[in-house]
Structures are given as C-alpha cells and as structure tokens.
C-alpha cells in the first residue's frame, strides 16, 4: 500500500528533481513525490460520485531487473533473457504488477501482468518465469504487443499495482464506508474493457472483505486498480475522504487503449492538473465529433460537489451540455480524477490515445 490517510489537504506536489550533474557525467534519479486526492462526500442517505484514479507510479524492489531491455516479444509476452525474475513473484494475485514500455514506438504503454490464479478477482494467466512475463488477458484483448510496436531493444520498467484492498483498505484504516449490502455502503465501479462491475466492502462477510455485487458477493480484494484506468467511487457517508498518494512521477509519454464503442473510465494519470482539450481525446482515431451529444461521443466529468457534466467535441471545441453549450476546452481535469468516456456505435476493438508528458522534468 502506498497511500497514507490524512485529514489534511495537501495541495502541492513535491518533486525530487533530477540529481545534480557535472561536466563529465549526468546521473539522474526518477522523480518522486506525493499528491492528495479526494473523494466527494455523500449525503448520508444518497451517494455522490467521484471519478477517481490512482496517480503516480509505485516503484518497488523486486528480484531481478525492475527495468531493462526487451530481448523477445510475442502478442502477449515480454521477454528479457537477462531479467533474473523470481518465477511467479510478479504474478501473485494479491500483489499485482504493471509493466511500462519506456522507449520505442509503444513508449508509454502499460500492461497489467497476469496473475497465477484468479483468486479474489485477480486476472489469471500464465505466471512469470525467470525471463518472461505475460500481460493480462484484459490487456491482451485490447492490443497485440507486436502489432503496436513493442520490439526487441525497447526498454521497460515494472511497477507495483494497487488493488481494492491495498488502496481503499477497510473502514478502520481509510474511512471508507462498508455495509452488509451495496446499497448501505460506499461502492466502486470498475470498468474493464467496457464491462462495468460494482464492488463494496461487505462488513458481514467472514472475514469482512471487498466484494463484488452479484451472486455470492464473491471476494474481490485483489481486483487491480491500474494507473491508466479510473473508477467511479460512490460515497454514501457524509464525510469526504482524502488519500495522500506517494510514488514516482511519470517521465514518459502515455499511450492507452480507448474502446471503440461503449465505455472507458480513463485515469487523468498525471500528477498535475490538465484540461479537457489537453486530454487529446479528440485525436483518437474514430472519435465521433458532432453537433450534439445525440450524435457525438461524450465525456463525463464530476465536480467536487459530485455533480456530473457531460461534454462533447463538435469538431472545433469541446462543449458542455446545458444552456448555451459553453465552450469547455479549458475545463480543468484534476489530479487523481478520471473521465467517463462513452463512444457511440457498435465498432469493435480499441484505438490508441497518446498524451505527451505535460511538464518539463529538466528544469
């Protein structure tokens, strides 16, 4: 777990800047920092929504090369013959990892590493070996690694990935509201490849745990909270939540898949506020612009009061539904938030979104 609960609102982002250099050599370290992200209070009787994401990347020491050079690649595996990973260590269901491609055509792509079993909501696949890791089936369903340009010689880096239980904890540790039923508790919607699933902390389970809304209320403690996707947090309790998140500042561009029809909850991702226009969604292949939300793809944002705003791109500007359809290109998309994308039509597959790093790390 990489977050600390805090009642303080910390508005600033702390960077550890690149290390000093001299005339002969330049030594750099990855910048790290912390941000505070919040969950809007409910009313006590009605839930309010926050589109939420986990900012920063979670560096972690592992056995073998946490960063290295790819020596082989298939549609869903990455090989580093020099990796020296501990077999299965990157595939434990309760402690998932992501791998980020940091150079080459696919730089900025991130993939969840497949777990060795589907325990408590983990996504099972082939466990890692000493030199090979398999990306999760949900990511492999989006793209073929070789087709998007992952290639021998590219660099990668491995990060830890939070889960429902590691990040949101328990009512006692983080202040989330549990309950016997989903209606009586805070709830979280995770959308994976278009399919939305609701989870809550079930207090009458033995032992209490994160559970899936559905038959059997199955244990879902290990559902991954990948940094590239967001969730919808519906808060019932009438107090706000805040989380101080520590981690590494992203240093390479971002590339991710947007579902060609249906829903994607996309993480804001960056540890600095951005704007609706700078999300660059309008440049995604197949993005449908139009005169109104009746025909155009839409994006939903929530303000800090839990009120939703719906936006669409008309070919020139982002507009907001409502009186006057105001131009909304510069509407802020804050740190630790997410956007709910709804693409119209029935097109199958996914299209790539790319975003440049929105800050300069060299100053």
């Amino acid at each position, binding site marked *: 777990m990489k977050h600390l609960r805090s009642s303080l609102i910390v508005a600033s982002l702390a960077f550890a800047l690149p290390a000093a250099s001299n005339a002969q050599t330049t030594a750099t370290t990855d910048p790290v920092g912390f941000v505070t992200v919040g969950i809007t209070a409910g009313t006590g009787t009605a839930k309010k929504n926050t589109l939420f994401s986990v900012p920063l990347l979670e560096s972690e020491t592992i056995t073998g090369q946490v960063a290295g050079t790819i020596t082989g690649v298939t549609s869903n595996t990455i090989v580093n013959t020099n990796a020296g990973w501990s077999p299965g260590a990157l595939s434990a269901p309760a402690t998932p990892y992501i791998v980020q491609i940091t150079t080459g055509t696919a730089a900025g792509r991130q993939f969840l590493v497949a777990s060795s079993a589907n325990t408590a909501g983990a996504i099972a696949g082939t466990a890692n070996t000493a030199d090979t890791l398999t990306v999760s089936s949900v990511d492999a369903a989006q793209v073929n690694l070789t087709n998007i340009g992952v290639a021998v010689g590219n660099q990668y880096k491995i990060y830890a990935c939070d889960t429902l239980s590691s990040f949101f904890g328990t009512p006692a540790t983080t202040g989330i509201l549990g309950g016997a*039923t*989903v*209606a009586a508790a805070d*709830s979280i*919607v995770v*959308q994976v*490849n*278009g*399919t*939305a*699933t*609701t989870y809550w902390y079930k207090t009458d389970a033995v032992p209490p745990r994160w559970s899936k*809304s*559905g*038959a*059997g*209320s*199955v244990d879902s403690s290990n559902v991954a909270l990948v940094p590239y996707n967001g969730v*919808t947090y519906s808060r019932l309790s009438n107090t706000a939540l805040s989380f101080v998140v520590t981690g590494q500042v992203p240093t390479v561009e971002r590339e991710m898949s947007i579902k060609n*029809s*249906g*829903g994607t909850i996309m993480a804001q991702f960056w540890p600095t506020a951005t704007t609706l226009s700078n999300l660059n969604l309008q440049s995604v292949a197949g993005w449908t612009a139009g005169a109104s939300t009746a025909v155009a793809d839409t994006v939903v944002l929530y303000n800090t009061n839990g009120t939703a705003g719906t936006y669409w791109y008309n070919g020139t500007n982002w507009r907001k539904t409502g009186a006057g359809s105001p131009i909304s290109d510069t509407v802020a998309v804050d740190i630790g938030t997410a956007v*709910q994308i*709804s693409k*119209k039509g*029935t097109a*199958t597959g996914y299209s790539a979104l790319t975003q440049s790093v929105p800050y300069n790390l060299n100053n």
Partner: protein
Amino acid sequence: MTVALPKANAAAISYQVLQDLGNVKYTVDTQSDVTYSQDSSGITMNTTVAAGQSFYNSSMTSELSNWSLNSPYWLKMNITGTNPNLPFTLTLSDSSFNTIGVLTGTTTWDSSNGGGVAGSTGVDFYSALTIVTGAAPSFQNIAYLQMGWDGGGAINSKVSQFAGTAVPEPSTYALLGMGAVALSGYVVRRRRRA
C-alpha cells in the same frame, strides 16, 4: 425437451430459451442494485440506470437440458420511449459463483447476427450478444445470470429471455432421424396408393 422455435426474420436459425427471466423461473436477488419490477414475463427497468448497476438471481430454474448450445446468443427485450442504446453485460456463473461466461450487447436490435424483430418502440426484439469469455458447453452449468449496465442513462426496458441457438444433441438427432424415416415411409405409401 424444449421445442426450438424459428425466429422471425431468421429463417435459417432456430432458437431456444436458455433462461426465462419471468418470476416463475427466475427469482431476482433483492440485493440487486438496479431499480426493477418483475412479473411472469420478465424484468422491467423504467428508470435511470448507471454503469455498474445490475440485477442477478438468488435462484432460478434452468431451462438447459438435452441441448448443446451454440452461438449466436440473444437477449429478448422491449424498449419504449427513446432508446439510449446502452451497453450491458451478461455474466453467467456456476453454483460456486465462478464466472463461466461473459457476453456483451446493447439495447439495440442488431440485424447482422441472426436477425430478430426490429427494435421499434414497444416491440419485442432480440439484441445480439457477443461472447467475451466462455465456451458454449459450459453454459449448461449456469446457476446465476447477472445483467449489468455498462453505460448510464434513462431507459424504459423490459428484458424477458436469454436465448441461444438450438443444436440438438446426438440422441435428439437420432430421434429426428427416425422421424424422418417414418415420414418418408408415409410419403412412399401415399404415393403407392395414388
């Protein structure tokens, strides 16, 4: 044995009701978080739904027996008012709550996958389902069927049946074959009498 009925506008395809969603054979779990009502012919959701909301059963009487099930699959539904074309997912689980099949669709008639009655307002139609995971034979172990919305919006909908293509098992083929032989014999006798 359930009789396979021809679907309208799909002369080459017959379908079988895999699970009727009326309250005779499908009991909705009261912890389901979508607002609904149910009668003998299906489940009605005249409401604004949000992604992640769903209904699922506490018990059901499966109609799966004596048949092997092949895609395509459909969800029979009826939309009144404006259709927001919402996406949804059907999750099929066994008695131990293990997911054995996931199918997705939208509240829209899809003519490309087997036909069905066009989704005019107030008319029953069949929404084509896309298999995300799951193998057809394992569907016979379904103990729980959950329908979850993957998009939000106001919708007046009634879902009544989960249906699939009916493919007789070998024993059924044998019975059909015997019937065919008997029928051919009857035809022959009539021709001789004529």
